[in-house]
Every structure is written in C-alpha cells, then in structure tokens.
C-alpha cells in the first residue's frame, strides 16, 4: 500500500487527500442532518425525496439551483483569490451589496442603449462597485495598518445599512411604498437561458471567470507572485515581489469578483431590482464553498453546485415536510467545522527517517497560506 501511494506525486497525493476529507465532511454532515430529521419525527424518506425534488424535480427547480450556483461560485473564487495572497476578505457580502448597487444604478439611470452596450456596462459597474469597497479595505490595510478582516467586516456592516437606506430612500420606486427600486431597464438584464426557469445567461460569464481565475493563478507570473506572497511573504519580498501591492491587488480583484456576483443578483434576478438584503448571505456561504474546494478555483464549481443544491433543496424541505431551512444552514456550519478542523490531516507530513530523503525542498508554494 505504501508502495502504491509512492507512485502518485506528493502534490497530487495531498490534493487527493484534501478532496477525500472534503467529501467525508459533507457526507458526515448530511448523515448528521438526516439523523436530526429522524429525531425530530419527520419521515426521513419524504424529507430526502423533497430534497431531491427540490434540486432535480423539474427543469424549473434545476434552473433555480443553477441560479443560486452563480453568486456562490463567484463569491468563492473571490475568497480564493484573496486567500491565496494571504489576505482574508471576510467582506464578500458587503462587496456583493456594493456591486449590486452600482449595477442597479447603471441599469436604472441609463436608457435607450442597446443591450450589447448597456448590459456589459452594468456588469462592469458592479465589478467597479465591489472593487471600490474592497479598495477602501485595501487602503486601510496597506496604508493604515488595519487588519484586512476587521476592515472588510466593518465595511460590510456599513454597506448593509447603506443599501437599506438607498432602497428605502433615494432609489426607491416611484410610489415610494415597497422599499425597493423599480426594475432596471430591460436592456441591462441578462436574457433568459432556459425558458420557464430563472436561469439566465450570466452563468456562462461565471464559468469563463472561474477558468480565467484558475489560469491566472496557476500559469502566469502574476499568479505565481500572488501565491508566493501568500505562502511565504518573506521569500516573496526577498525575490523582488512587491508584497503590499500584491495584497492590495488581490483584495481589489477579490472584491471585484464579488461585485460581479452582486450585479448578477440584480441583473439576473426575476424581479431585476435592488431590495435590501438581496445579498442573502451569499458572501458568507461563498467562504464555505471555497473551504470545501480547498482554495482551488476549479474545485469551487462542484463545491458551489453542492451548496446551491442544499440551499435550493432546503427550500422545498420546508414547504413540504415542514422542516425549517435552518437545518440546511446548520449543516453547512458543520461542514465548515469538519473541514477546518481536519486541515492538519491534509497538511501533515510524515516525519521520515533522516537518511531516507535529505533536505526536502520547499514545495508548498503551490498552496495557499490558509487551507
């Protein structure tokens, strides 16, 4: 067995172990929640069926799952980009709110433009809005020495109030009673991808963005310097990387990606408008996804699909079996705790006899500082 394992390169073995731990965590958490359902007295079979139907029951349900997948995977990739550079962007939620707001402003204020101009403009505005909020945090971190996670978290809390004010005040729809904006112009909304579902074309953009992020991180000099900064800032500085600049860039990029997620939540939503709380915790759930994916951008796709399915299936669970969606939230929390708690399982390196392998070179550069 030891022989067999030795055939797989070490880095791959580590990745495999990581994937195994993530899957085990999910299975354990799901099993635990099934136990809880059984304990609460609801029929387990019905609950499982409701869950399944919630995700795959009809094209509409499946479309809704994929709709939830979009912001989740974007937020997760945002976390990955920052985290690989050693920065903790806890404020993805706020950047989603900021991006959604700027996208909505562009979508509301301009009219008469063709879709080919208006829609990209609104999405870019979303990215810029997210990046602006992330930029404040990055400035505070780089220039004023404020912890990145404290700055991003506080900005999120401020942004929540700001969106609530905008949607109830200056941007409110004309009658001024609903506490949300009117829908953005049709030319700024993503066209429907699958008829009779909520799925729109933005999912294509998402896949492209994820692939680009994975490529840049893995195969370019910028990505290399970013990973080096996260893995070993001292070494990065010594080899000529401007680590502070990399940190600022990573935070802003991460925030811009979250901003795109926000723009999707406005421009691809059925209502197509800005309402308080439209971010619906996607920013924090994105962190869960990134953890499950062990900070690998490509692995974010299956992980986000899984959590989107949980979210979507949980809704039907509540409607049909009467089990509160709180259970799904709790399941996610258990997954995080298991994955975080087992990081040492993946990172461990067996101490070897001194003569077996002299002087292992540092090879952990390909992994982020935070697992």
């Amino acid at each position: 067995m030891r022989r067999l394992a030795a055939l797989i390169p070490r880095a791959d073995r580590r990745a495999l172990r990581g994937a195994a731990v993530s899957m085990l965590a999910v299975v354990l958490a799901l099993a635990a929640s099934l136990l809880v359902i059984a304990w609460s007295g609801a029929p387990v079979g019905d609950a499982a069926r409701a869950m399944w139907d919630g995700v795959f029951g009809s094209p509409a349900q499946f479309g809704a799952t994929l709709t939830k997948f979009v912001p989740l995977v974007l937020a997760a990739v945002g976390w990955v980009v920052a985290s690989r550079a050693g920065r903790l962007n806890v404020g993805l939620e706020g950047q989603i709110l900021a991006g959604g707001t700027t996208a909505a402003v562009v979508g509301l204020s301009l009219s008469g433009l063709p879709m080919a101009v208006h829609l990209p403009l609104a999405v870019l505005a979303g990215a810029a809005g997210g990046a602006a909020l992330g930029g404040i945090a990055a400035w505070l971190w780089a220039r004023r020495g404020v912890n990145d996670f404290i700055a991003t978290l506080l900005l999120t809390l401020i942004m929540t109030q700001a969106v609530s004010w905008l949607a109830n005040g200056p941007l409110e729809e004309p009658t001024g009673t609903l506490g949300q904006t009117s829908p953005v112009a049709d030319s700024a909304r993503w066209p429907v991808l699958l008829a009779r579902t909520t799925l729109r074309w933005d999912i294509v953009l998402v896949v492209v963005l994820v692939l680009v992020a994975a490529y840049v991180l893995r195969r370019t000099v910028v990505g290399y310097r970013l990973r080096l900064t996260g893995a070993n800032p001292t070494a990065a500085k010594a080899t000529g990387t401007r680590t502070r600049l990399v940190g600022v860039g990573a935070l802003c990029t991460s925030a811009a990606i979250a901003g795109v997620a926000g723009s999707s939540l406005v421009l691809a939503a059925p209502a197509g408008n800005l309402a308080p709380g439209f971010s619906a915790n996607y920013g924090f759930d994105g962190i869960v996804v990134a953890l499950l994916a062990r900070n690998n951008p490509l692995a974010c796709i299956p992980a986000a699909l899984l959590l989107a399915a949980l979210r979507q299936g949980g809704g039907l669970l509540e409607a049909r079996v009467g089990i509160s969606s709180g259970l799904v939230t709790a399941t996610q929390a258990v997954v995080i705790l298991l994955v975080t708690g087992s990081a040492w399982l993946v990172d461990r390196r067996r101490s070897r006899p001194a003569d077996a392998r002299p002087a292992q070179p540092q090879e952990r550069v390909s992994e982020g500082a935070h697992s």
Partner: protein
Amino acid sequence: MNPFDVALFAAAIRLSVPLLLAALGELISERAGVINIGLEGMMLFGAYAAFLTAYATGSVGLGLAAGIGLGLVLGAIMAFVSVTLRGDQIVVGVALNLLAAGVTLFLYRLQFGGTQPTTVKMEPYAVPLLSDIPGIGPVLFHQLPLVYLAYVLGPVVAWVLYRSRRGLRLRSAGEKPEVLDSTGVDVVRVQWGAVLAAGALAGLAGAFLSVGQVGLFAENMTAGRGFLALAAVVFGQWRPYGVVAACLVFGFTDALQLRLQSMGAVPQQVWIALVVVGVLVAAVGVWRARRSGSPLRWVLLGAVLCVAVGGLGAALVPGFTLPSQFWLSLPYVLSLVALATSARRVRAPAMLGRALPARS
C-alpha cells in the same frame, strides 16, 4: 421637545450592557490572540438556551446559567478547532454564526411552530439610597441586576489583564507566544482559557437579551449586536476602559436612534450636542497630541466635521431628518475611522487571527 431625558439615558445603559458583556469577553480572547467572529452566534445560542431553560423551569437564574453554559460549550468548540487543531479562526467564527442561525431557527420552529411564547424575565432592582439621587439615581441604579454586574466587569477585566500574572500570560500569548512558551507556560492552555471566558460572557450577553430584558425569544434576536461588540473592541482600541467607553457610545447612539425614529425631525438639541461633542473631541485631541504626539490632523478633522454638521443641522433644522440607517451604521463608521486614524500607534494584538506556530 428635548430628547435628552432620564428615559433616554436609562435606555442607553440598558442597550450597552449586552454589548459590554460580549465585548469584554471578546477583548480577553483577542488579547490572547484569538479573534472570535462567531460572537454573534454565541450570543444567539446563549439567548436561546436561556429562554428554553427559563421556559421549562420558570427560573431566571437557571436560564442565565444555561446561557453561560452553552456559551462555554461553543467556546470549547472554537478553542478546539482554532487553537488545538490550528484551524483558521475567522473561518471557525463564520461557521459558528451559521450554526447558531441555523440551529436556533430549526429548533425554535420545531418546538413552538410559529407561536411566540413568553416566559419569566428579570425584574429591575432599585439600589437603596443610591437610586434616590436625583438625576443619575434613576438612570444608573434602577436597573436589572445584571447591569450592576456589568458596572464592575470593566474594572475587573482591566485588573486581570494588567495587574495579574494570568493577564500577563494572556497578553504575551497574543503578542509573542514563543516567548511565553519558552518560559514553560502552555500557550494552548492560556488561549483555551481566554476563549472559554469569551464564550461564557457572550452566552451571558445573549441570555440578557432574551431572559433578562424581554422574557421571550425571537428568530435572529441578536440582530447584529455581536458584530457591534466586535466593533466596540476595535473602537476601544483593545483596552478595557476603551471598550467600556465604546459600548456606552454605541448604546447611546442606539437609544438616540430609537428615540429619534418616533420623533420625525431631528430636534435642535441633537445638533447642539453634536457641536459640543466636536469641541470636546478637539480639546481632548489637542491635549493628548501634546502628551504623546498622536496625529493631530485626523482628530481635528473629526472635530471640525462634528461641529460643521452640528451647526448646519441646527441652522437647517425644520424638517431635516437623518435616516435611521445613518445611526445604525454610525458605530461601524466610528470604529473604522478610529482604526484608520490611530493605526500606527494603536494596533491589534500581533497574533490576532493567526494560528500558533507548530511546536517541534
């Protein structure tokens, strides 16, 4: 109509107490190098446990004990994953928040299915003699018993942190754990203790919200107070009396905000008070700048802003209102500004958010 009456100040004290309990716990934990983003979740769990126990037993004391107990359990989870297993503190905190939101929602709906039962709650206790002092008596000494506990907690925490051996170890764990380790102290144990204390206090803060104040539980009843307490630690610049002051300021703005919501236009007195605050900030800033050479321009900028906004508001007063969201976000803005303006001199504990180095 003058909004600054006895009821306002009494409400300010009442609103700052749960913040104070949670924030002082968080302070202990952060000084030991462990940031606990899951404060909100711990409070929510504490509120729920306290409510359930009080509902089942009819005893406020048992309810509070249950809040503390569950807080300890959550602290143990936090400490085990983030200190012993060296998992990422931020991520564990996010998990605890999700866990609390999910579990309390699930159990509450399961047990009470849409109804909202009430249970016993703590009764105010007027301290003899002291509560008869005109002015401050009814504000300070006609409160819930837990409030009196909160009064002494700040000095106690300050004493423990700066005057006891335990506190020295705790602060070293947050600044230079390897030094503490080399003196033969188990750093892991020190951090465990700090996180447990934070959990217990957060649980108590949550219990104060449910059993202490209202005698009922509501979904997401902490409503961001955990994050507010986090901000208070930042605004208080990681010092016990700073944290106490921050909690009082936040509690006061919250009380003022609630009052103003029912008043329509912002009364003249608020603007005048703002001008006074600006002048005070400027005076204190000048005084401190001469003593320690802190960057004066930021302090003065803040003071000038206060005076300008206050003056403008007083001039334009009829019909001018500020949205409630302005007041709700004010604590966070203040915290960020405080951090940004004093960052070089006042900084977070060095190990904040970072895992201990592995022992060879």
